């Protein structure tokens, strides 16, 4: 049966999460008529229970209607064995997307991230870039993105302390951050006993810790509350609307213009293109029916895995290998942050039970190019973070530090004494894209509609292992300085599905090696824009969301400015 053809709109946005849910605001304010297709529904504050089983163990079973049907598969290397397929998709469906329950960490990348390749060549020579890496400089600089970072910070609301305002460095903030035009709109989240303790240890080591920026209200904002620090924030939605997901910030403002129509529970199956190669609209399923939403411009803003998958599934005469894939670039340059934690055991109670994971102490002394990498065998490094919020199942799932078995009476006694006396240090290392790390369609595994799921081909390169081991050593040093008496390090290995997944539709000037141009629009289908970390060519050493949002805003701005030439 032919799909029901709906009235044409100016812009259709696929996915109302961190990226799409932000881009709809400038678009709607400009007067464009926008339809937002979202695979999930609306959430109320009372949907957000402090329930670790539901939020963290069973991963929001009520809110992954679509994502859980299409969990990607993964294999290590081209001929490697399949990695275990997780039972849950790490992202969720809902108006606001995963910004409903993310940690809210809202870092900017640094100037270095945008020109990692040329800076590395300049400082360390060609041998410092792994031979099989496909890394390129970004087509834009930090300075070009800076105004959009600021807009995102002020519009969604980010709490933090500036470390560099127009070149004036402030030790109270992150001294390694790249210059910002002005201070954060809210002071940082408050510190806690444990974060103060770790900050003091960092200071004794001569390191420069700071309170990480978070999209969480440290003070009341408009009519919304300041954070209650209740301790169920990680993978938990906010019951008092203090977390600045797009569902409570940009989306309501966009709706208020009258120019945004939201279609919840819309399961998008394809983006259509005409024979000339322009996209014409989006096909989706809802309530048992199939619909076609025609639009002058399509913005694809689902998660990294689905951005690639939907392009590859959208075949047409103009794009026989998938939409915008005539150069064979869709799915390439895939990267993710990877496992790297170090756990420390202390002889005193840390009292990490409450708070939020964004309430922490972080440092960048060992990230980016903030230290000399000569002879180290890797470039970049990682941000280090300790944080509050140890929920009870998580606390009890602690490592045993080789001191007791993992069950039985002695373990129970160990747990009684130590469940409140351990803490992880997390590192996010800057990963690089490699030729043999990519996304494609799984040849065997399909979703219930019969469409192949996304497949990851991944691995952990020697340079990345060296970076992780280096950072684990720094993590241990920090924990020991703070009084840890035992250390356990997570084993190295690639992780299958990540909430920090990059690439697949990389942004760059060269159409032969990139899917979208410097503005986020397809080199091939010029009225198709792509939002999300899928456009990022390097991962950076910190959480991606704010960069995703700044880029999304910039793409929306470009569309508004160039409407006549893009929409024709």
């Amino acid at each position, binding site marked *: 049966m032919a799909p029901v053809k709906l009235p044409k709109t100016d812009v259709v946005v696929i996915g109302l999460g961190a990226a799409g849910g932000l881009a709809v605001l400038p678009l709607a304010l400009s007067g464009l008529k926008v339809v937002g297709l979202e695979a999930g529904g609306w959430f109320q504050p009372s949907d957000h229970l402090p329930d670790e089983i539901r939020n963290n163990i069973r991963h929001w079973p009520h809110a992954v209607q679509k994502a859980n049907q299409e969990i990607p598969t993964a294999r290590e290397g081209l001929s490697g064995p399949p990695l275990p397929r997780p039972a849950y998709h790490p992202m969720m469906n809902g108006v606001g997307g995963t910004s409903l329950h993310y940690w809210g960490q809202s870092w900017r990348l640094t100037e270095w991230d945008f020109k990692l390749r040329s800076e590395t060549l300049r400082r360390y020579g060609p041998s410092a870039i792994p031979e099989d890496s496909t890394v390129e400089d970004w087509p834009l600089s930090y300075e070009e993105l800076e105004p959009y970072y600021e807009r995102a910070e002020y519009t969604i609301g980010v709490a933090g302390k500036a470390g560099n305002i127009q070149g004036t460095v402030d030790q109270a903030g992150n001294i390694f951050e790249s210059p910002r035009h002005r201070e954060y709109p809210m002071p940082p989240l408050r510190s806690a006993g444990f974060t103060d303790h770790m900050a003091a240890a960092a200071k004794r080591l001569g390191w420069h810790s700071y309170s990480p920026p978070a999209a969480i209200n440290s003070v009341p904002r408009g009519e919304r509350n300041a954070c209650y620090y209740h301790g169920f924030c990680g993978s938990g939605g906010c019951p008092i609307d203090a977390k600045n997901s797009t569902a409570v910030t940009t989306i309501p403002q966009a709706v208020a213009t009258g120019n945004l129509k939201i279609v919840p529970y819309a399961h998008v199956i394809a983006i259509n293109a005409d024979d000339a190669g322009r996209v014409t609209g989006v096909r989706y399923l809802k309530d048992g029916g199939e619909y076609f939403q025609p639009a002058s411009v399509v913005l694809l803003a689902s998660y990294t895995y689905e951005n690639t998958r939907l392009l590859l599934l959208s075949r047409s005469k103009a794009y026989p290998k998938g939409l915008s894939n005539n150069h064979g670039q869709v799915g390439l340059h895939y990267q993710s942050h990877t496992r790297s934690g170090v756990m420390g055991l202390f002889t005193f109670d840390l009292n990490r039970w409450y708070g939020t994971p964004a309430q922490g102490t972080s440092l960048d002394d060992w990230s980016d190019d903030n230290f000399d990498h000569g002879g180290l065998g890797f470039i970049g490094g990682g941000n280090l973070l300790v944080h509050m919020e140890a929920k009870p199942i998580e606390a009890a799932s602690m490592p045993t530090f080789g001191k007791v078995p993992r*069950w039985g009476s002695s373990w129970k006694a160990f747990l009684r004494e130590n469940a409140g006396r351990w803490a992880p240090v997390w590192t996010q290392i800057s990963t690089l894209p490699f030729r043999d790390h990519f996304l494609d369609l799984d040849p065997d595994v399909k979703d219930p509609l019969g469409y192949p799921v996304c497949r990851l081909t991944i691995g952990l390169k020697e340079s990345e292992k060296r970076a992780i081991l280096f950072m684990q050593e720094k993590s241990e040093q920090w924990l020991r300085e703070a009084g840890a008496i035992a250390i356990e390090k997570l084993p190295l290995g690639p992780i299958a599905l990540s909430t920090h997944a990059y690439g697949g539709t990389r942004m760059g000037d060269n159409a032969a090696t990139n899917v979208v141009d410097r503005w986020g629009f397809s080199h091939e289908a010029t009225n198709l824009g792509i939002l999300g970390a899928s456009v990022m060519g390097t991962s950076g050493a910190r959480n991606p969301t704010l960069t995703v949002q700044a880029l999304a805003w910039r793409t929306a701005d470009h569309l508004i400015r160039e409407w006549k030439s893009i929409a024709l």
Partner: protein
Amino acid sequence: MGSRPEAKKKISGDSQQFLSVSRRELLAGTAAALTCTLFPVSSLVPPRTAAPAEVLASRERECLEAMVSRLIPAGADGPGAIEAGCARYIERALGDAYQLLRKTYNEGLAALHSCAVARGAESFAALSAAEQDQILSDFERNVHIGDYGNSAAFFEMVRRHTLEGMFGDPAYGGNANFAGWDLIGYPGPRMYVSPELEKMGAKLPRSRVFAKQLVDGSR
């Protein structure tokens, strides 16, 4: 419509904090202009078939109870997994969220049983604690039991689920009398946490309440 439903509930804190979370009327004028259907998410959870009261056969249940009681034994230091209802938690989950794991449980419990029979016992539950521990150690180290090769995976799964039952929200059938939270000194869910409660060395009054009670303010 394009707005989420109004929240009417009050959120209660345990520090005499009551806060209305009613939403501002920001969207009031626009609702009529937009035409999509709107559902509160809570109404869209697929209707669950009533969990059968008993998912496991009685011999299986006995075996599972014996296993979890060795993972977290009762003792002078407090209740163990049985007393906290971990087996009940697991069986309830197998009738509901973990339905797809029933076969995995059936097979693993059968393997435990066959180990006990091989030792001349009537059942795993009938073995001494020391013998049960030996078998569980074999499972943990992935010793194959006949043609059953999933012993470590089974052990890890049951351990994980036992931790969920012991330390999760009691609404799921485990953590009876908050035994798990008492064991590890978890101070308990509260809506509002003052800066004082986040200090190291703070005296933490215990809040013993279910998540739903906290959000409904119905404690």
